[in-house]
């Protein structure tokens, strides 16, 4: 009795066959275990079908002869006599319900007949042994299948995550988190259900049908034909109802989607709702959506849950028909007792035959859901990962006595680009300095829409380059290109004279420090979060970095200082504090190039001024790209680029830009025109 599966998306897999094939491919890893599972299932269903069949054997081969023996030896009981006379309903009812216990006691004690139940008991013991073996094999297959399904899910999860981490930023930018998340939750859940329930049940159902059919034929060919003839009624009914309930579930799903969307949006914006006294309107809007979920849900659930009673009672009616025909056949048969015993064994077999068929019909939905889920999982796994054709690596370096740069395992604090040249097989080393050059760079997130046009700029090591411009001018895009979150469509970006496409992405990114617009902290302590910048950083290095970012003071005031746990994206810190931590995280990484994207937007100017003091020290000898709305934060840059619609319209240092009296001047003086 699985819990009712409500609120599930009813989605059809696009290519069921191919997905199933891949799924089986996944399970191939556990081939030997699966063979064991199948063998155990076969044995266990065999036992249960055979058990039912053998009961008939027990009656026919052991009990009936004894019965005849007894009847010959001590004669008929009162009851039997009564039956023989066929007095009709009254007597028969009295007999079977009130029971002939007294009579039996009397005749048992009076008889000289002493039947030998030995063989019968032996037979039962044999049957019992078989049952135990059957239960054991059920245990074995349950357990093995559980191991296989958990291992498969574990592998699927890890594969998904590992693959996901290697996907390009573009993938994440184009999808909502919820969309990707549901691969790990809903889709994996349907897969789990498939592996742990639907799959073994399908196998067991199939063999149940085969074995039941086998014994049914052995017991009575005619009755088997009858059972088969009655089957289509069940199948057609199941199919019809299934189709209806599928349609209704889709409708319910849609209504639930609308309602949940509304709940999410309204509660996210609850503060605004209250500030605008919009509560009554919200309640009314909610009630409408809520009611349509109820209407759709009632339909869907009714359809889904009438399937059970229908199947049950259809099978009862089938049962009666078979029993009727069976009894008539038995009455007309020369060996009535034998035929009746066969009927008794046959009847449960019809259940054992029809139940797996209706089971399979009901499992069909689960299988479809699982396939649709797996398809989405495979879709993620099939996404092309970030390609990396770079071959220039970042290595620790030092200068030898001749002043040449050589590679060294020592921590010299000096880094170099190791550049192998394929043509002549030589390797050259270029010191990592932080020289960045854009040459006629053109870029668009989609080919049809260019965001940056012909951008050229250079940043000498140690220079601070600032980007200024309104929202959507392309400032953030530029930083996305330096670290190759996105690849440019035209032009070249050179880093220390090397085309960045030749540099291994990891090494390129390692050489760049970033503090991003949206600060993201991870679950863990403050210390761990700062250490994210450099995994082998010592505690001293962490504290030093925090001091540079001016975060040390507030960290020390947290309940557990550097060991304070941060949860839910650092929700227990203020926005400003989180940014300070993000800056500390970049500081501990100690990269030659820093990218600060509005890194200080939520820090008030006073605090920012304090950070800047630290940052000045940090920035010394580093190339810095800074993006900010506030012009005050970019003033001391060596070069300021004013961007508009993806084009650099002005460049120069603060003074020269003011002299130009262009856009920058307007922006800057606009700031003061009111005073």
């Amino acid at each position, binding site marked *: 009795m699985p819990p009712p599966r*409500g609120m599930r998306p009813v989605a059809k897999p696009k290519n069921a066959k191919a997905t199933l094939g891949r799924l089986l491919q996944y399970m191939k890893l556990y081939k030997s275990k699966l063979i064991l599972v199948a063998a155990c299932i076969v044995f266990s269903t065999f036992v249960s079908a055979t058990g039912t069949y053998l009961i008939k054997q*027990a009656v026919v081969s052991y*009990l009936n002869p004894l019965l005849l023996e*007894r009847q010959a030896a001590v004669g008929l*009981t009162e*009851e039997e006599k009564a039956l*023989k006379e066929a007095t009709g309903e009254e007597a028969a009812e009295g007999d*079977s*319900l009130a*029971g*002939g216990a007294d009579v*039996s006691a009397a005749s048992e004690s009076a008889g000289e007949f002493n039947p030998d139940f030995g063989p*019968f008991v032996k037979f039962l013991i044999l049957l*019992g042994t078989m*049952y135990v073996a059957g*239960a054991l094999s*059920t*245990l074995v297959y*349950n357990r093995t299948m*559980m191991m296989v399904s*958990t*291992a498969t899910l574990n592998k699927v*999860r890890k594969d998904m*995550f590992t693959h996901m981490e290697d996907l390009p930023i573009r993938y994440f930018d184009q999808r909502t988190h919820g969309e990707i*998340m549901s691969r790990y*939750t809903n889709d994996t859940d349907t897969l789990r259900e498939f592996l742990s329930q639907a799959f073994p049940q399908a196998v067991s159902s199939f063999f149940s049908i085969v074995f039941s059919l086998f014994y049914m034929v052995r017991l009575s060919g005619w009755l088997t034909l009858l059972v088969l003839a009655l089957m289509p009624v069940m199948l057609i009914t199941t199919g019809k109802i299934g189709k209806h309930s599928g349609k209704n579930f889709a409708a319910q799903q849609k209504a639930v989607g609308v309602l949940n969307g509304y*709940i999410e949006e309204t509660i996210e914006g*609850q503060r*605004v709702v209250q*500030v*605008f006294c919009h509560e*009554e309107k919200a309640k009314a809007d909610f009630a409408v959506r809520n009611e349509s979920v109820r209407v759709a*849900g*009632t339909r869907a*659930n*009714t359809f889904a849950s009438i399937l059970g*009673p229908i199947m*049950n*009672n259809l099978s*009862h009616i089938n*049962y009666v028909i078979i029993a*009727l025909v069976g*009894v008539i056949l038995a009455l007309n048969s020369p060996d009535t007792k034998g035929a009746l015993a066969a*009927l*008794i064994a046959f*009847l449960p077999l019809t259940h054992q035959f029809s139940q797996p068929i209706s089971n399979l019909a009901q499992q069909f939905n689960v299988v479809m859901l699982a396939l649709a889920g797996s398809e989405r999982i495979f879709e993620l796994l099939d996404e092309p990962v970030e390609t990396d054709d770079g071959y220039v690596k970042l290595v620790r370096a030092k200068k030898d006595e001749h002043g040449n740069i050589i590679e060294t395992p020592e921590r010299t604090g000096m880094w170099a680009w190791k550049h192998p040249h394929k043509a002549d097989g030589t390797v050259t080393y270029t010191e990592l300095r932080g020289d960045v050059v854009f040459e006629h760079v053109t870029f668009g997130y989609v080919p049809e829409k260019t965001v940056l046009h012909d951008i050229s700029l250079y940043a000498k090591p140690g220079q601070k380059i600032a980007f200024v411009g*309104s929202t959507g001018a392309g400032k953030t895009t530029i930083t996305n290109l330096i670290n190759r979150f996105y690849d440019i469509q035209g032009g070249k970006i050179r880093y220390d004279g090397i085309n960045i496409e030749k540099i291994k992405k990891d090494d390129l*990114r390692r050489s*760049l420090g*970033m503090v991003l617009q949206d600060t993201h902290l*991870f679950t863990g302590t403050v210390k761990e979060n700062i250490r*994210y910048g450099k995994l082998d950083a010592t505690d001293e290095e962490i504290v030093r970095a925090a001091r540079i970012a001016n975060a040390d003071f507030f960290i020390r005031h947290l309940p557990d200082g550097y060991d304070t746990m941060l949860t839910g994206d650092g929700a227990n810190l203020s926005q400003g504090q989180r940014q300070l931590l993000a800056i500390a995280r970049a500081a501990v*990484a100690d990269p030659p190039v820093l990218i600060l994207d509005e890194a200080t937007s939520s*820090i*008030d100017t*006073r605090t920012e001024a304090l950070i800047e003091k630290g940052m000045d020290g940090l920035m010394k000898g580093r190339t810095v790209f800074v993006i900010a709305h506030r012009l005050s934060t970019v003033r001391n840059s060596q070069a300021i680029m004013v961007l508009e619609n993806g084009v650099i319209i002005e460049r120069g240092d603060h003074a020269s830009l003011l002299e130009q009296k262009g856009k920058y001047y307007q*922006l800057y003086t*606009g*700031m003061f025109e*009111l005073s």
Partner: protein
Amino acid sequence: MKLTKLLRYAGEYKKYLLLCPLVMIGEVAMENLIPLMVAKLINEESAEVSQVLKYGGLTVLMALASLAFGMLGAYLASKGGMGLSRNLRRTMFDQVQRFSFKNIDRFSTASLVTRLTTDVNQVQNTVMMLVRMAVRAPITFAMALFFILRLKPDMSVVLLVAIPLLATGIIIIMRAAFPKFQIMMKKYDALNASVQENLIGIRVVKAFVRASHEKEKFAASADELTATQRAAEKVVLWNGPMMQLIMNGCILAILLLGGRKYVWGTMQLGDLNAVITYITRVLFSLMMLSFLFISFVLSRASVARITEVLEEEPEITSPDQPVTQVRDGSIEFDHVGFSYTGDKDNLVLTDICLSIRSGETIGVIGGTGSAKTTLVSLIPRLYDVTSGRLLVGGRDIKEYDIHALRDQVAMVLQKNVLFSGSIKENLRWGNENATDEEIAAACRAAAADDFIRSFPEGYDMDLGQGGVNVSGGQKQRLCIARALLKKPRIMILDDATSAVDTATDARIRDALRTFMPETTKIIIAQRITSVMDADRILVLDEGRVMDFGTHDELMERSEIYREVFTSQQKGVA
């Protein structure tokens, strides 16, 4: 926390939920009579075919009755269950609408959403199952037992052994498995949380080249999940084989006992068959009871989370005889102290005394954590003051009807939210009856009219959920326009133009002055230029008023102000 406690929220659907078990009794009764009929069918070995037909016919009738009851039961359960969840959701949603900011802070929005969706679903599914199954198990148990006793009372000996055996087995398994499943659920949540975190922070992961580190972390928690899952499932695995074994054992025992009787002619095959069927049912009903119990217990967490929402007392409510008119936009802070926790020793705002005249423009400036937002949140009574008094229009704000007060105090929050729907629909939040001209005028004042007109659909453009179709600066301007439409007596802008460029920012402030000269305007800003033209500027530091005066006065006497000013114009001055 009990599931039954929630049933009172079913309201008009309660009758369906109550009727359903009654109908189910009919279904179960029929279902359990059928084996008896079948037994007679087979027992009538020496009777005529007409007798067989009679019992066969009865069986079919019973099956049809059972079908009718079953379908009716399914309908009643669905109707009642969905009705309950509808009413429960509505009650919760309405309750959330009564929540104050403090209530929301306590729950967090994400958890409120989960409670309204996932938890209500869980309860609904459990209830739908319960009303259909709750009577099924005990009635099947009782009826099956009754028939065994009537048919062959001595056969019930088998049950005397089997029932305690099965019950003990079930209890042992459940006891062992339950805590293990709880651990598993926690690991599962943790795993999902780490995926979520990686999705949000993917740029950080990539920028710091930490993918392999994250992969290791994930692999470790995935392995942990698998290990705990296996530990839990290994226990539950025993359920199936145990049931199988006990059931088959019963069959063997009955064959053994019944076989003798059969030979002695005191038991017929049909009865033997019926006894086996009924004993199987007794055992199944026990199994069903254990399932019911499990789902009942599993729903407990959801029930508790739902009840928490329902029982949460809204912090802020209107007084019994509220004042509904706000005279003017004057504001008076009278020794106001405030703490989010209500703890008077740990105040966020300390002893604030301010007197603001109606129509004044007030700038607020201060460092991170100086409680600027907190200060202004008190004015529309989003939070209640911890000590002191706050007066608007000459009256303590606690005397006002809460909606009357908030209608007169417009606030553009730091965290701006737009809703799905067209721009116009969003703007009408400010004033439902606003004409198109009024809307356009407000948008011009908020410097939003130009960009709105540049959209192909203009004011009818759909904003998408959370206003994803506009940029940050545009969003802020729409939010300002929305607040302007309220024509409030007090207008609060909490860093509401941070993403707007400086020139536009200045234009908006200019427009505000001409658009609503009577309105008191309070502007919180990081940029000193946004506040320096205000009538008076409030300098906050660590929850205390450091100074309050005009730009010139402050330049002269406030060191903090001077510091901020110079830090922002170094290079020009």
